[in-house]
Every structure is written in C-alpha cells, then in structure tokens.
C-alpha cells in the first residue's frame, strides 16, 4: 500500500460500509501493510496448472425437497429488528 495508505484504506472502508475516522485509518493502514507484506510471500509459490481448492466432493445438493414447511413466524422475526413500522423493517430514506 506504500505511499497512499490512507487513500487505499479509505477506499476499502467505503467498499465495506465502514465509517473510519482518520486516526483509525492511519493505524489500520500501517497494520494492513505489514500483514500484506507477509501475505505477498504467496506470490513465490508455483501454482502452474493447480486448480483452486474445491470442497464439492463433500457437498450434497443444496436443494431441499419441494414440500411445504413451516417458516419463522413474522412477529418473532420482527422482535429482533431495531426499527419496525406496520410489521415491516423500517430503514432511513434511501431514494429521493
């Protein structure tokens, strides 16, 4: 990340929906640089013709039988929601 730590960390924070004040961005940026320096050692591994790891051999079909089943009760699900309006999840305005 070298000379533009804060720019990159700010960009990552924006992508991650994370408010990040300058002081925190500075500390995290320096730590990320150290960690990435270590991780970049992977570039030295010869991965020619090596497939990406796949656990598919273990995975059954993710599809359930097409039969009616009970689902979580709406009121119980809504009980944990921070803001509810007319039995709907309420959020701030996001479109003009």
């Amino acid at each position, binding site marked *: 990340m070298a000379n533009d730590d804060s720019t990159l960390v700010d960009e990552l924070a924006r992508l991650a929906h994370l408010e990040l004040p300058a002081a925190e961005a500075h500390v*995290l940026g320096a730590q*990320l640089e150290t960690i990435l320096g270590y991780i970049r050692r*992977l570039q030295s591994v010869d*991965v020619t013709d090596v497939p990406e*790891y796949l656990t598919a051999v273990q995975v059954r079909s993710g599809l*359930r039988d097409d039969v009616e089943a009970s689902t979580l009760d709406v009121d119980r699900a809504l009980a*944990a*929601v*921070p803001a509810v309006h007319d039995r709907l999840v309420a959020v701030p305005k996001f479109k003009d």
Partner: protein
Amino acid sequence: MSDFDDILARSARALASGIRRGELSAVDVTQAHLEQIQATEPALHAYRCVTSELALEQAAAVDRARAAGAQLGPLAGVPVALKDIFVTEGVATTCGSAILSGWVPPYQGTHAQRLADAGAVLLGKLAMDEFGMGSASENTPFEPVHNPWAVGHVPGGSSGGTAAAVAARSCALGLGTDTGGSIRQPASLCNLVGLKPTYGRVSRHGMIAFASSLDQAGPMTREVGDAALALGVLAGVDPSDATSLDAPVPDYLAAVDAGALGQLAGTTIGVHRRALELDGLDAEVRARFEASLAVLADAGARVVDIELPHFEHAVATYYVLCTAEASSNLARYDGVRYGLRRARPSLRETYEATRHDGFGVEVKRRILLGTFVLRAESYADYYGRAMQVRSLIAQDYAAAFTRCDMIASPTSPVPSWRIGAKVDDPLALYLLDVFTIGANLAGLPAISIPAGFTTSSPRLPIGLQLIGPHLAEPALLRVAAAHEAATAWHLERPPATGAAS
C-alpha cells in the same frame, strides 16, 4: 471431599453414567456447577450469561424422567455451556460483539437442539473473541477471559471462555468452534482435550459464520472420553446445512475404550520435522512434544518422518481466505434486521456508523483485509492464488497420509502469555496459528490433548496435536485415549478452581 467436590471431580461421561444409574441427581449436579460458576467467575469472566433457571428446570426434568423409568439420552443431566457463537432460542447470543448486544435469537441452532435432545443441561453462554477472530479471547468489548492455570494469562482463543470454564470445572463439557485453531489452541493453553471434527462432520446451522469453508464446531473437555461422548451427539447430517456430511456416525466411545488399553501397535504417527525448526517454537513446548512422541512409541506406535512441502505458506493462505469470507459473512451486520443500530439520516450513513460502533478493531482489520483481497484488482493475485495454494496444502496432507495414519505436532508453538502482551502486534498473533490452520484449510479432523506443563513459574499447560485423514476421528480418539492412559496431565486441577490438584 464434599458431595459437590465429588461431582466436580467427575468427567462428563462419569456424571452421565452416575445420573443414569441413580447415584446422582441431575439437580445436584447442576447446583454444584452453578455454585462453581459463582466461585470462579469473579476471577475468570468465562461466562457471557448464566441460565440458572433454565438449567435447574432441565435438570429437574431429567430427574423426573429417570424416576418415571423413561429412556435417558446420552448426556442426560450433564451440565454443558456453549461458546456464545452458537444460536440459542430465547437466550441472548452476542458472538462476543457489541453489534449483537441484546440480540435474543428467535430460533434454535442445531448444536443447542441436539444437546437438549440428548438430555444435556444448558448452564449458559461462554465468552470469546469477537466473531471468533483472535487467539487470546481479548478481542471483545466485554471482559477478557482469564486462564484458570494463571489468572493473569490468556486462556487462548477464540473459544477461550469455553476453555476457561471447562478447566475451572464450571461446566462439565463445553462447545467451541474452530476456524483456524480456535478449539485446539485454547484447549492446549488450558490443559484440555479439544476436538475439531472433519469439515462437515458437525452441522454449522446455528453457528454464527466467520469463514464458512473453514468453520467447524466441536467439544472441549477434560478427558478424551467426554469429547467422544459429545461428538457422538453432535455429529451427523443436518438438512439445515448443505455442507454437513451424510456419513454414518461411528461409535466414538468404543474407539476411546480401545485406545485406553494402551496398545498402539500397527499405528503410524507422522512428524514433519522441518516444522519443529520454526523460529518461535518454545523450547519447553518442543521438549514436551518429544516426550509425548515417546509415550506413543512406548505404546507401540511407529513414528516416521513426513514432509508437508507447503507448510510455511499455510498462515498466509489462511489469512487471505478467512478474511475474504469474513468480509462477506459480516456484511449482514448493518443495523437493519437485528442487533445494534446507529440511526443516521441516510441508509448508507446508518450502515457505516453502525458498523463503526458495533465492530471491534480486529474485526475491522479483517473486514478491510478481506475487502482488499476480493477487490477486482486484487482477486487473482490474492484470493485466487490462495485457493490454489490451499489445493497444494490439501494435496500435501493426502500424500503424507499414504505414509502414516495421523500427523503429530505441538498445538501451539508457545504456552499462554500475559493478558495484553500481544494485542498491538496482529501479525505475531496470526503466526501462532502455524500448527493448527492446515487442518482447517484441508478440512481434516484434529485433536489437541494435554501433554504436560512448563517447568517455569507460573506452571502453564502445553498441548499435543494429532491431525488425521477425513473422518478419522475414531483413530484420533483411540490414540488420544492411549496417550491419556499413559499420562496423568488431564487429572491435574488448576489453582483457580477453589481446590488443590
């Protein structure tokens, strides 16, 4: 010894058997553990919440069922506690994070349900590193957990609350989760047995996700037989988790009983000697490892050298993949559907403020790193490459298992350290995962067992790790039981339990 001391001295297996035979009442067993929680919690902070009322109701139900002649489950009356990563209907679940403070799940996870179906009594939820991210149980807005063997020291992590509670006898057995060593490392630092099953052996439904291709739940216990007992209850396919394995569940207790006879002739243990030359491997840990190998050899096991050519790349591979998966899994915590919300004028500001206030610094660090490796500009060089190296690491293990039945190593390169001593050096902490993360990357079962103590003061536990091929849990339990039968480390009692060893 009082009746309660006698109860606390028993293994979970012995408690279950005593309750089944009518020698012990489940209510007395529960009461003894609730009193132990009261006695030890001020020093340890292992519990996030204690469900005393529920526990006593469940225990009374077990006693009534027994009196009525009903068939009892394999864990009937055994007091258990769960890492706070497990979803428990009606019982607050924080995952060690402020972002889930006050969340009371509206559904039951598979682990809590299977334990309840087996008759277990739920004592409460246990402290942990936030979202399972840490090696010391310090990464949390709540109190850090203290190690019962030396209360100024960490219990390991991320299942450190589970380790401290089981070691302190404030529950008979506990459940942890292991993404890169989070069951085995705290087990090692607290003189316990910690079993990470094969990926998919135990359901992940109701286990809050950190890195879904690596996460696995498992038992943490004082004796090998208790881990086998718990695994028998937890293992098996689950319609709610498509990655759970549809494979028969063997008799794990039979494997333990066979191992306890101490005969390991015909078993080959592999050792990757080059890994033992690692910088940072504590000399006492190395010495105890060699002593454990001698114990296994004395029981008839053959010890051979093996190679894991990509061993030194495992930590980097792991921290690319686990952070990538974490950045995706933790996107759901946005203040909208559950947990903390910081109300702001716009939706985006609400997301950003909620996540800033709700996540701790280690979680933020990993989200940012994961976001970096998944960016379009970085993906091939980081995430894609790490997935290729993961294949090479899995191939290394497969090749090694053509020469041996399991691989032995230290669990942690160091014993416990003082609380706060390593919080400012995340990379140094990541490097401590060096012996454990290979099993997660390759989806293999692994167990940590007590292997002795440091000779310096304070006297700190050291663990031995065994890694096996897919679904080799019976073989691991058999060898672990043979080691336990030949040693007495598991019988020692830590100072912070209110009684001498």
